[in-house]
Structures are given as structure tokens and as C-alpha cells.
């Protein structure tokens, strides 16, 4: 910095930057600090046990978050399993199939979905989607295919991991679509021209072009998983909130996010429960960051592979 006025300018910009750095450091510190008590007390069984017994007596209190981890993974998995084919189709629709005038309209609709307040999804999921799924999907599947472990439990209410997975799919889909679409649309023109010049049909062209962005698609899946795992209110409303681990899709359960949302209010009454919730939060934090880092790396790496400038 050779000039005094430049240095002053830089100094004036440092406080906002410091805020972000401080926030991040505090985040890590607070979560690690508050997780230590429960981790010291229970060790790794904290993550491996399904027992969640809140108690004011220090002897009988035990907090295991395995059902929460299970629920998080299952609902996110369902969400991405549904969202992936949908986003892929929408990407191909937008880029290969749709006539130009529909493209802008379609894009706008997806943007609208992406920003719609999540509580609205939750409300709709609770009162419309859950009963609908129960009637049209769960009951028939249970009746006719109930021998399969996936459908073996009777759907008493529509509030289940399946419903949570579906509502998450609806919410995550605009996000994974945006990622895939961006990747697909930035395939250099020369490759598209080459593919078309070969006389490929739309189907064949799509397959080839999709294979070019395969790392981006995998990355989008990971990022979608991360996004789904973080979602709180919509899931809390439809998942039933019980500490269940079951292979059956129609059973209720909970996720780390919904566990925190429902228990945090009363947690200070029980020793170690606050720490347990922070421990769960820490797990979610690490999981989310891991998924996001790898996902982001993949999404940006495909460009290097294809020789696209960033």
C-alpha cells in the first residue's frame, strides 16, 4: 500500500470483514465447547445409540442421536433420489426440448420455487401432502406390497420419513436444477456443434452432453444432500418427531434439525440435554460442510476437465 488514503480505505473495510471471520470462529468455538460435556460423558455411543432419555437425574439421563442421524440421512437420501431425475429432466427440457418462449417462463417458475418461504412448504406438506400421500401412495403400497420391509408398517398418519423426503425433494429440486443447468449451459459451444454435426438426435445429444458434466451432476447431488439435511421447519412439521429407526418408509422419525427444533426449548431443564443438542448440531455442521466442500469441488472441477475457462 503506497498511499495513505489507500491504507485508510482498506482499514475502513476491515471491520465488516472481521465480523464474518469472528462469526465463523465463534460458530466453531461455541459448538465445540458446548458439545464437549456430552461427548466426554457418553463418548462415541452418543452417535451410536438410539436411547434418548431426558431426565433430571444424572444417573438415568442418556442422549443418543442415532435416530436423528438415521432420519437425516434417510430423508435427504429420499429427497435427492426424487429430485435428481426431476432436475435432470428439467435441465434437459430447458436446454434441448423447450421452445424459446417457454424457457424464460419455466425458468421464472423454478426461481419462484427456489425462494418460496420454507414454512409455506411445511404448512402445505402437513395439511395437504401428508394426507394425500397416505391415501394415494402409502395405503395401497402397504396393502399390496406390505411384505417388503420398506412398506411393512401400517401408515396410521401421513407423517413419516417418506413425506418428509418428498417435501424435501420439492424444496431441493430448484437448487439441484440450478446447479445442473448452469453446468449444462456452460458446455462450450464447440462441443454442442460437434455433437449436432454428427447428426445426433435430441436423446443422443443429451446423453453425450450430460456425460461431459458428470462431475457436476455428482456434485449437485452432494450439495442437494447438504441442503436437504439442513432444512428444519418443513421437516419438523411432517416427520412425526419420534425417535424411531425403521426400514419402513411410512414410519415417523426425526432428523437432527427437527430434533433441535423441538427439544431446544425445554433442554435447559435437563442437564446435558443442551450439550447433546449442540453435539447433534456439531455433527450436522460437519456433515453439511463436508458434503458442501466435496460437492462444490466437483461442480467446479468439471470445467477444468473440459478445458472451460472459469
Amino acid at each position, binding site marked *: 500500500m503506497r498511499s495513505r488514503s489507500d491504507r485508510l480505505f482498506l482499514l475502513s*473495510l476491515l471491520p465488516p470483514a472481521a465480523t464474518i471471520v469472528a462469526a465463523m470462529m465463534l460458530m466453531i468455538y461455541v459448538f465445540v465447547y458446548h458439545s464437549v460435556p456430552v461427548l466426554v460423558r457418553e463418548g462415541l455411543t452418543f452417535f451410536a445409540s438410539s436411547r434418548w432419555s431426558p431426565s433430571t437425574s444424572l444417573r438415568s439421563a442418556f442422549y443418543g442421536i442415532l435416530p436423528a442421524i438415521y432420519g437425516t440421512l434417510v430423508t435427504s437420501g429420499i429427497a435427492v433420489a426424487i429430485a435428481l431425475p426431476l432436475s435432470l*429432466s428439467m435441465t434437459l427440457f430447458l436446454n434441448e426440448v423447450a421452445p424459446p418462449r417457454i424457457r424464460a417462463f419455466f425458468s421464472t417458475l423454478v426461481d419462484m420455487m427456489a*425462494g*418460496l418461504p420454507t*414454512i409455506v412448504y411445511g404448512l*402445505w406438506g402437513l*395439511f395437504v401432502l401428508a394426507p394425500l400421500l397416505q391415501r394415494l401412495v402409502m395405503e395401497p403400497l402397504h396393502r399390496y406390497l406390505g411384505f417388503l420391509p420398506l412398506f411393512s408398517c401400517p401408515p396410521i398418519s401421513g407423517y413419516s420419513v417418506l413425506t418428509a423426503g418428498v417435501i424435501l425433494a420439492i424444496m431441493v429440486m430448484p437448487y439441484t436444477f440450478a446447479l445442473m443447468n448452469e453446468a449444462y449451459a456452460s458446455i462450450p459451444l464447440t462441443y454442442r456443434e460437434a455433437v449436432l454435426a454428427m447428426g445426433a438426435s435430441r436423446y443422443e445429444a443429451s446423453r453425450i452432453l450430460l456425460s461431459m458434466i458428470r462431475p457436476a451432476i455428482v456434485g449437485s447431488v452432494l450439495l442437494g444432500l447438504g441442503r436437504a439435511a439442513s432444512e428444519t421447519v418443513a421437516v419438523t412439521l411432517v416427520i412425526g418427531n419420534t425417535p424411531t429407526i425403521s426400514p419402513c418408509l411410512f414410519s415417523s422419525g426425526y432428523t437432527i434439525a427437527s430434533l*433441535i427444533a423441538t427439544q431446544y426449548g425445554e433442554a435447559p431443564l435437563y442437564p446435558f440435554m443442551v450439550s447433546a443438542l449442540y453435539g447433534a448440531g456439531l455433527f450436522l455442521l460437519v456433515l453439511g460442510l463436508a458434503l*458442501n466442500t466435496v460437492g462444490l469441488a466437483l461442480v467446479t472441477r468439471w470445467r477444468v476437465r473440459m478445458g472451460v475457462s472459469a
Partner: protein
Amino acid sequence: MSLRRKLIDRAFVAVIALLSAVGIAPLFYILTTVAIRGAEAIARVGLWRFLTSIPPAPGTHGLGGIGPALAGTLILTALSTLIGVPISIGVALLVVEFPNLFVSRAVRALSKTFMEIPTILLSMLVYTLLVVPMHTPSAIAGALALSLVMIPYTTTYLETYLESVPPIYREAGYAIGMTKAGVALRVVMGIARKGVLLGIVMGVARALGETAPLLFTAGGSHYAYPTSLTGPVDSITLLIFDFAMTPYTNLIQVAWGAALVLVAMYLAIFLAIKLLVKEVRT
């Protein structure tokens, strides 16, 4: 092309179109449901009363309104914008005008990482940092949590717009003797000002619709208007969340009405964003 290839292609197009329609359909379903049930609820008391009165007692036949929650949402949104915008602008300017400093690169990476943190965890953080020492949830805490959600978002948009100002204008600014600060504020921000506004509006849209960051930080009663910024405050999103989980039909109705109000606000901002984007492009 052989018949087989043609048929596969046709089938492909049909499947793609179908799946895309399936993907988009929930939006219509949701908007229609909210419109119908929400309108039903609001119509029972009239729009003005719905927006200003307090909710009914649980289980009664009366309907009331979402006055305190609406006030809370407006306060929280305004406050979080006030906190978040200067920070976003500051960080964006730092990253764009001093790109080679370690601080800039670090903050850029951190800011992107922040975007990916689950919002409920931000609520827990602000709870520990602010609500516990203050012994009360508050508008400030809620706004702080919201701004933590908003800042990485807005910063990223601002960075993009500021970077896209062509270098020839920066050169012109320096050539007439402007300092770095002058170029940054008068030339770069001046040229990118519509983009800056767009980034801010997008941040507002984000803050408006969030629930999780407010869960342990805002804490207001649905029945009482907020009295101070250091006291608890409600929000439309929290109200919907709470009432949806009750077994009382009248409260659930209020929740639908509130959802309609929220969606209307969201769509209004969405429209504003779309119009601004058009202007920024030209």
C-alpha cells in the same frame, strides 16, 4: 434416421416434458392451496382486521388476525437489512478492490462457507451469544441471526456485480486522479448501483421467508405487539409454525391466512427482483 431412433427420441422428449411438468406442478398446487385456504381465513374478518388485530384464543370460533406477527416481520426484516447491507457492501468492496490480500481471499472463502451452514445452527449460535446474556429473546437477536443468513448471499451477488464493471472505467477514474476509495465508491459502485440494489432486495427476500434462525432468538408472543428492539418479537413465519402444530382449527385457519400474506409479500418482492434484473441487463 431410422424409425427406431426416431421413436426413442420422441419417447425421450415426452418423458422429459412429463417429468418437468411433475417437477413444476407442486408450485401451482401449493400456491392454489394457499390462495384458497388463506383467502377463506382472511375473508372471515376482512383484510385490514386480519393484518392488524391479534389472533383468537385457541379453540374458539373467532378468527382475529396476525397484527403482532406482521409488525415483527417488518421490524426484523428492516433491522436485519440495516445490519447486513453495510457489512455486505464492505466485504464486497474489500474482496473486489483488494483481491490479492490474504484477508480478502480468506473472507471470500469464509463467506461462501457461511452460506452452507444450516440456519437452525445460526439460531443456536445467536442464542448463546446474545439471548442468554440478555436473559431474553429479542428483535436484535432475531435480526442478527437473519443477517447472518443474508450477508453471504448478498455479498456474493455484490461481488459479482462489482467485478463485472469493465476495467476501462476504473482506469479512467484513476487517470483523472481519483483515489482507490474514489474509484471504488464513485465509479464502480456508481456504475453497478442497480446491481447493488438488486443484491439488497434479494437479501430482503431471503430474510423475509426464514423461520429457523428466529426459532430461539425472536421469541415473541403472537398476541402482543412488540414494544422494544431489545424485547421479544414475533414473526409471520414463527406464527405459522406454531399454529400449524396446534390441534385448534381456528388457529390453523389463521396460519393459512398468514401464509397467504407471506406469499403475497414474497411474490411482490420476487416481481420487483425480476423487473430490476431486466434493468440491470440493459
